[in-house]
């Protein structure tokens, strides 16, 4: 019939009008993100062997790994700095890790006031937590 599509459209908006809004009131209500959300990174420092594969996998070269050799000539991690200012959050570092030491973390609130603060040392803990402590 002529005009049936119009009536269908009207009924859809009518139901939306009385339906529930899907807006999340962000600062008051925190979003419940899935664990694999590309927020920030968490480093399992026991598992990390400081091989540097993540640093070489990074397309923007934002990861700097510092390590030293101990008595048994074994590599030990002393610093894991990530320049979040240039990070793409592509996840190639997470995928390339042979030891499964690098993980995603849903913390996405990485904004800060100074440029220097965009660099984090993941050895000291997840980025968001370090910032809160400071």
């Amino acid at each position: 019939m002529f005009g049936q599509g119009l009536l269908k459209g009207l009924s859809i908006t009518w139901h939306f009008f009385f339906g529930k809004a899907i807006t999340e009131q962000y600062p008051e209500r925190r979003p419940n993100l899935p664990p694999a959300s590309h927020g920030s990174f968490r480093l399992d420092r026991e598992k990390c062997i400081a091989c540097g594969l993540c640093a070489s996998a990074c397309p923007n070269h934002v990861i700097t790994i510092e390590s030293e050799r101990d008595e048994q000539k074994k590599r030990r991690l002393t610093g894991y700095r990530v320049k979040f200012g240039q990070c793409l959050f592509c996840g190639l570092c997470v995928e390339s890790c042979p030891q499964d030491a690098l993980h995603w973390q849903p913390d996405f609130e990485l904004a800060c006031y100074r440029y220097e603060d965009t660099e984090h040392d993941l050895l000291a803990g997840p980025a968001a937590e370090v910032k809160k402590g400071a």
Partner: protein
Amino acid sequence: MENIFTGIAAYLKGLLVGAPPWRQTLAMGLLYLLGVLAFIFLNAIYLIYLERKVSAYMQQRLGPNRLGPRGLLQSVADAVKLLGKEDIIPRGADKWVFIIAPVIIFIPAVMVYAVIPFGKGMIPVDLNIGVFYFLAVASTTTIAILMGGWGANNKYALLGSMRCVAQMVSYEIPLTFSILGVIMLAGSLQTSQIVAAQEKIWYILLQPVAFLIYFIAATAEVNRAPFDLVEGEQEIIAGPYTEYTGMRYALFYLSEYANLVSVSALAVTLFLGGWHGPWLPSWLWFLIKVYIMIFIFMWVRWTFPRIRIDHLLGFNWKVLLPLSLANILVTGVGIKIYQLLTLGRW
């Protein structure tokens, strides 16, 4: 409650007893104008909020909800923001045309309220050609929009105003013809008489096709989606309003909402029984019906996409106009048959 407004008017009129008649007329005229202006401003402020809320709910959003309880003060903040904006007159603009266009557009928007029956005995000026006056005054809005678009010296503004002229002039014809059916039934152009004739049965039941035509044509007349080609932000920025800023822009905005209220009020007067209704005071019934009409206008606006300009004009001339003419014919024949059945003569 029923007589609250008429009571105030009668009291103020009582204060003027003994004054020369011309002064009484002038004072009462100014009082009515003040009432109408208050009605327009309060409605416009609320309608901006309402439109944003309705559109938000229809798009599963929340809409303004930060300023004041449930965001009610949002439009006040918008008005203050507009007041604080720089008043820009573009270089190369036709200065005087550009400046007076927003003022001129506001005049017919206010003038049409003169013949709207807001309630029992609450009609500012009860003209015997009320509906005709309404249509004649409302049609002058086109000139102001064309002035704004021409004066701005901007191609988008000119395009928008040309579209406005094409659209509003052609949609006026089915609009008028759809109203003609109601006028034939009521036998009067006087809005108070049309309302009085609907005491038993609303004309929307006798003239459903006319109501539909009126609704479509009125949507086009007030330039609302799906007929908002005049503004068409995706194509021509804001049409005739492109170069306007601050309070001048606010005046256009205000008159747009004033027009929305006035076409809704006319629809209520002609088709929905005016202020007739049980229990509640007449002016409240009028307001409720007007807001139902406005909600339908908003509902349509936030449901349908904009249609193309050639489709718009083709729809008008090929569908609406023949349909409205046929409606007049059927109404005339129907009236004659009714007379034959009830009175036994033509």
